[in-house]
């Protein structure tokens, strides 16, 4: 194969792979706003964020590039993508800055270049980003603990061991959730374990939970802090016929199935659709209509899903069209003016620096 053949094939391949920008039904004039959205990884969770961002772009008639690294929390790749969008001179940027600490400089460089930056899902404390659209992780941990206590009480369990898994040890959002859970369980006779490493890779995650279950046969509850945890725990619980209470995060299809079947007792949703939709809409309104950007934290809320309300959520998550329709009404009712909803950053674990 000679050099010319390889170059030609490469050119054809790259051209054919290029995705058409979302929000563009017809050829757009040069003046159309172009936004960028940098995800922290590609997963079912971020796929919903992407949907929200693209729906907002379509509704506001702006073009958007949604990008993200394939690996989970591949920070350097995400920063490279962010810098690439800055070089491309997009009009505004949204980023999931995970972990927030390392994003201060890239965000400052973007704002110095005249590009407004908003954050979603997690925030970058001390950065130049104007607003953060997300849930308070520490508070969600407390909320999860309260739900867990309810389920344990309903099973007449007053004491015992609660095993917690963390899929990415040290990741601040997960540590915040864990600290919140511990705080919420204070004053009870339950012992919350240290957060055990359960890995982000699906099979290794199942194996880690399997090992933890074997090592702690008397555990009364299992708590997963990541989206892949509770579907795997549900399979393990069914196979071993265990009696633990299972609670955790995120609302994937398998999680909803297991809640419906009564295997998982509770899962917290983070409204990823809103984390995609709201910042894109705010940027579009700011850049086009000169509306002020929200200043501070726009709390997208935490959704508690149990067997009682799972049917509604199941219907909403059935497909992208239904999801978009449900959120259209929800946004109109609750987030008509995000700037007016912005508030100071939420409380964080006392053990963590401000």
């Amino acid at each position, binding site marked *: 194969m000679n050099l010319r053949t390889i170059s030609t094939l490469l050119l054809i391949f790259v051209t054919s792979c290029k995705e058409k920008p979302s929000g563009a039904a017809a050829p757009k004039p040069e003046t159309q706003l172009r936004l960028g959205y940098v995800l922290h990884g590609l997963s079912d969770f971020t796929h919903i964020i992407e949907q929200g961002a693209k729906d907002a772009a379509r509704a506001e008639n702006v073009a958007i590039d949604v990008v993200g690294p394939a690996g989970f929390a591949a920070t350097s790749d995400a920063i490279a993508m962010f810098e690439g969008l800055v070089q491309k001179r997009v009009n505004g940027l949204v980023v999931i800055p995970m972990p927030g600490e390392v994003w201060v400089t890239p965000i400052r460089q973007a704002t110095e270049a005249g590009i407004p930056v908003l954050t979603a899902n997690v925030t970058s404390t001390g950065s130049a980003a104007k607003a953060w659209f997300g849930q308070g992780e520490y508070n969600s941990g407390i909320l999860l603990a309260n739900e867990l206590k309810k389920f344990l009480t309903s099973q007449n369990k007053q004491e015992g061991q609660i095993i917690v898994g963390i899929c990415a040890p040290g990741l601040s959002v997960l540590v915040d959730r864990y600290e919140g859970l511990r705080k919420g369980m204070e004053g009870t006779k339950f012992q919350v374990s240290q957060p055990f490493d359960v890995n982000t*890779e699906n099979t290794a995650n199942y194996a880690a939970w399997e090992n933890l279950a074997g090592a702690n046969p008397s555990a009364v509850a299992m708590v997963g802090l990541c989206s892949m945890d509770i579907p795997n725990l549900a399979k393990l619980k069914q196979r071993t016929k265990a009696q633990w209470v299972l609670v955790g995060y995120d609302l994937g*299809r398998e999680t909803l199935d297991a809640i419906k079947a009564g295997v998982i007792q509770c899962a917290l949703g983070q409204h990823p659709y809103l984390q995609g939709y709201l910042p894109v809409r705010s940027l579009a309104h700011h850049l086009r209509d000169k509306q002020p950007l929200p200043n501070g934290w726009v709390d997208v809320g935490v959704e508690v899903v149990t067997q009682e309300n799972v049917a509604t959520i199941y219907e909403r998550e059935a497909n992208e069209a239904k999801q978009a329709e449900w959120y259209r009404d929800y946004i109109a009712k609750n987030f008509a003016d995000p700037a007016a909803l912005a508030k100071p950053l939420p409380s964080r674990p006392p053990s963590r620096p401000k």
Partner: protein
Amino acid sequence: MERTLQPQTRTEPELRGWRRLQTFDEIGVIVALFSVCALLWLTAGDKFGQPGNLLQVARQASSYGIMAVGMVLLLAMGQIDLSVGSILTLVNIVSALLLREGVPMPLALVAGVAAGAVCGLLNGVLSVGLRVPSIIVTLGTMSVYRGLALVLSKATPIGNFPKNNPFFELGSANILGIPTSVWVMAAVALSGHLLLAHTAFGWRLQAIGSNTQAARFSGIPLARYQIAAMTIMGFIASLAGIMELAFLQSGSPTTGQGYELYVIASAIIGGTALAGGNGSVIGGILGALLIAVIRNGLVLLEFSAYWAAVVTGVVIISAVAIGGLVKKIQ
């Protein structure tokens, strides 16, 4: 009294045993595995030694143990494949997608295995055709295959397909008390061992790895052998992907992430030389078991998530060092 030097003499049976031990390539990893197991037995007590736990460890090892067989073949001829984890993911997703679309089970599985073999074939053809080392080609295809899995699945787990059939029942069941995936690992290992140690194909792979120039001059078609070995690797990775699907009953784009390191580590811990020239399939399986035992032990001993990573590395290095020392004495 004057001492006279006596030549050391051994009886004939002793000599036979000694010679057998000297040709026993896996002695290092066996000693390492037993050392770690003994340590865990002493520290973690009954929890480690329970048959249920040991079978669980064997099943966990099968995830990368199956692929270690293919990696041993490749390493023996001086090649490497970094895309194995991504091939596993792609096969996992392709089969799950086909099942979701209502394709009959056997056809979905065959299509998945074929996809894996084609990925391996492509690795070989690209490496030979472009004259680029396999490590570079597979570094690229690792990203391509994982990307394709993400595109196909939209980064979302695929589990909404019928699961009430023998494939899924068997995938998570035990046969004669042993998990199905362990049987599959044993079958793949036996086939791999026979191929490498008892066929002309295997001897030639090792000859290529030992001295490429000499192999070329002796008339071995290097390109054909490299393509064949990489296709076999792809095929074996696809079997691992199918087993993951059978056990977890869903396809996930995060399945297989980072497996390449475990697979390569299993093969090397098992005594296969990174530079090529020899390889031990049985050693590769034992290497995979060693990694799974360490992971299991860390949980049983309740190591913190932060220390677990440190301890894993230290134990692996120590185990390999013990194995190396034993081989040196041998």
